[in-house]
């Protein structure tokens, strides 16, 4: 290894400042679960890619940020970053051996090819990619997911792989791995009075009482599913890439009034697609909800798994859990969820 975590972080920060000096620094602020996030972009390339999904959280609050992330890419700023490790330093999930200490969290997110390093002491992180133009659509749909996970490690907050719909006074968390029907369930509810807080990753609080915050203002649908939601096709953000990507839809474009900041959680529901016409809710044990929520979340999010697991457990144990047997008549889904909440 060529450097200690301290040295590497300092060098990455210097590279960011150099990139910013060349391309200009763009600063954006966001309010996340009553905390202030400051993003400093070197140039506009990553800003364009990463802020659309969190635009609803934007704030003009000029106070001291709780977390600052410095983001840059090599292609548009010329600022490269030398890793200096050999292949064996990368763990199976992208964690970088020797660079995850009490103070630092460090990973290379394979697939999105994002290098992310958090200095917990300074509450500051560096986010680097080789080329902003190659940021995949899924990273655009849940930007900074791992940064949020690390940021909230010691707080009763946890990003989880789940959807959420509800009313201002209370709603449901919809859990399950990819393909289980989370998005279909959540989007089917938009034809009713229910509000939307996310269909893929949301932020949950397990204390002082269960609550969900909307992190991302978009939805993702399998292209084959678009026909089930009248009018949505005109609002797909990536219509020319549906042969290889899920359809990405921003709620501000499609149904701006449906997006909400979050709500208290009243129940957890796990969809199960049945193929039958009707939709019904049946009681389930906590274990069912945990199986639907914990593995998929913990396998996505790197580091701090024990704390995250305990937070998920703390949440699940406070809420009634249900299986939502999802039928083909989508109109029944919001009816069943509304009955549950009323």
């Amino acid at each position, binding site marked *: 290894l060529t450097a200690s975590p301290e040295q590497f972080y300092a060098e990455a920060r210097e590279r960011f400042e150099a990139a910013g000096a060349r391309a200009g620094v763009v600063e954006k602020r966001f309010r996340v679960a009553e905390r202030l996030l400051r993003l400093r972009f070197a140039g506009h390339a990553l800003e364009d890619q990463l802020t659309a999904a969190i635009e609803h959280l934007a704030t003009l609050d000029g106070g001291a940020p709780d977390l600052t992330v410095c983001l840059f890419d090599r292609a548009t700023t010329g600022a*490269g*970053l*030398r*890793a*200096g*490790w*050999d*292949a064996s330093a*990368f763990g*199976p*999930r*992208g964690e970088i051996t020797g660079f995850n200490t009490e103070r630092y969290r460090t990973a*290379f997110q*394979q*697939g999105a*090819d994002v*290098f992310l390093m958090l200095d917990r002491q300074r509450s500051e992180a560096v986010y680097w990619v*080789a080329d902003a133009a190659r940021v995949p659509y899924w990273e655009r749909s849940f930007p900074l997911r791992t940064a949020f996970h690390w940021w909230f490690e010691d707080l009763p907050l946890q990003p989880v792989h789940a959807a959420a719909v509800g009313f201002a006074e209370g709603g449901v968390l919809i859990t399950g*791995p*990819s393909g289980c029907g989370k998005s279909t369930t959540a989007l089917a509810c938009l034809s009713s009075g229910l509000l939307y807080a996310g269909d893929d990753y949301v932020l949950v609080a397990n204390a002082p009482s269960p609550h969900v915050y909307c992190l991302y203002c978009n939805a993702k649908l399998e292209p084959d599913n678009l026909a089930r939601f009248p009018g949505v096709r005109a609002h797909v953000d990536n219509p020319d890439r549906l042969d290889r990507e899920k359809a990405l839809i921003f709620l501000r474009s499609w149904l701006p009034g449906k997006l909400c900041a979050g709500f208290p959680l009243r129940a957890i529901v796990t969809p199960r697609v049945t193929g039958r016409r009707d939709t019904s809710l049946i009681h389930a*044990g*906590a*274990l069912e909800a*945990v*199986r639907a929520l*914990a*593995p*998929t979340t*913990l*396998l*996505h999010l790197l580091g701090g*798994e*024990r704390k995250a*697991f*305990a937070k*998920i*457990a703390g949440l*699940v*144990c406070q809420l009634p859990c249900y299986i939502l047997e999802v039928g083909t008549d989508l109109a029944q889904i919001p009816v069943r969820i509304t009955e549950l909440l009323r």
Partner: protein
Amino acid sequence: LPSSKFTATARFSVASPNIVWQAFDEESVAINLESGVYYSFNPAGALIWRLVEGGASPAEAAALVLESGAPPEALDQILGFCEKLLEESLLAPAANGTAPQTAPVETPLPWAPPTVSIYTDMQDLFLLDPIHDVDEAGWPSRPAGAA
């Protein structure tokens, strides 16, 4: 322990730091973060897991459970369950055996044999190819043509 490969004092610990677990009500879920496989234990399984992970040998765990009201056949069931945990690489022989738990346990009754359910549905979704090569700047490189 004629029907088992365990000695009376053979102790075990969780096989890898990549295995995390959590109790819910009386049951438990364990996740192997490296393989993507996850497991759920029924109440008896969760109890045995907790005892053995806490330092009891499988035989000592069985003795505690038998003392608390489980039927005699529980002995073989518990030892078989522990063998399954070894086969699944959830447990591994402990380098240094720790002190066993001696406090009485509360066995869920009526007795049902300990079981572990194994779930592999996450494996295909999450496991990426291990990183074999890095480029000249030290970052993982993709094979030509890879997305």
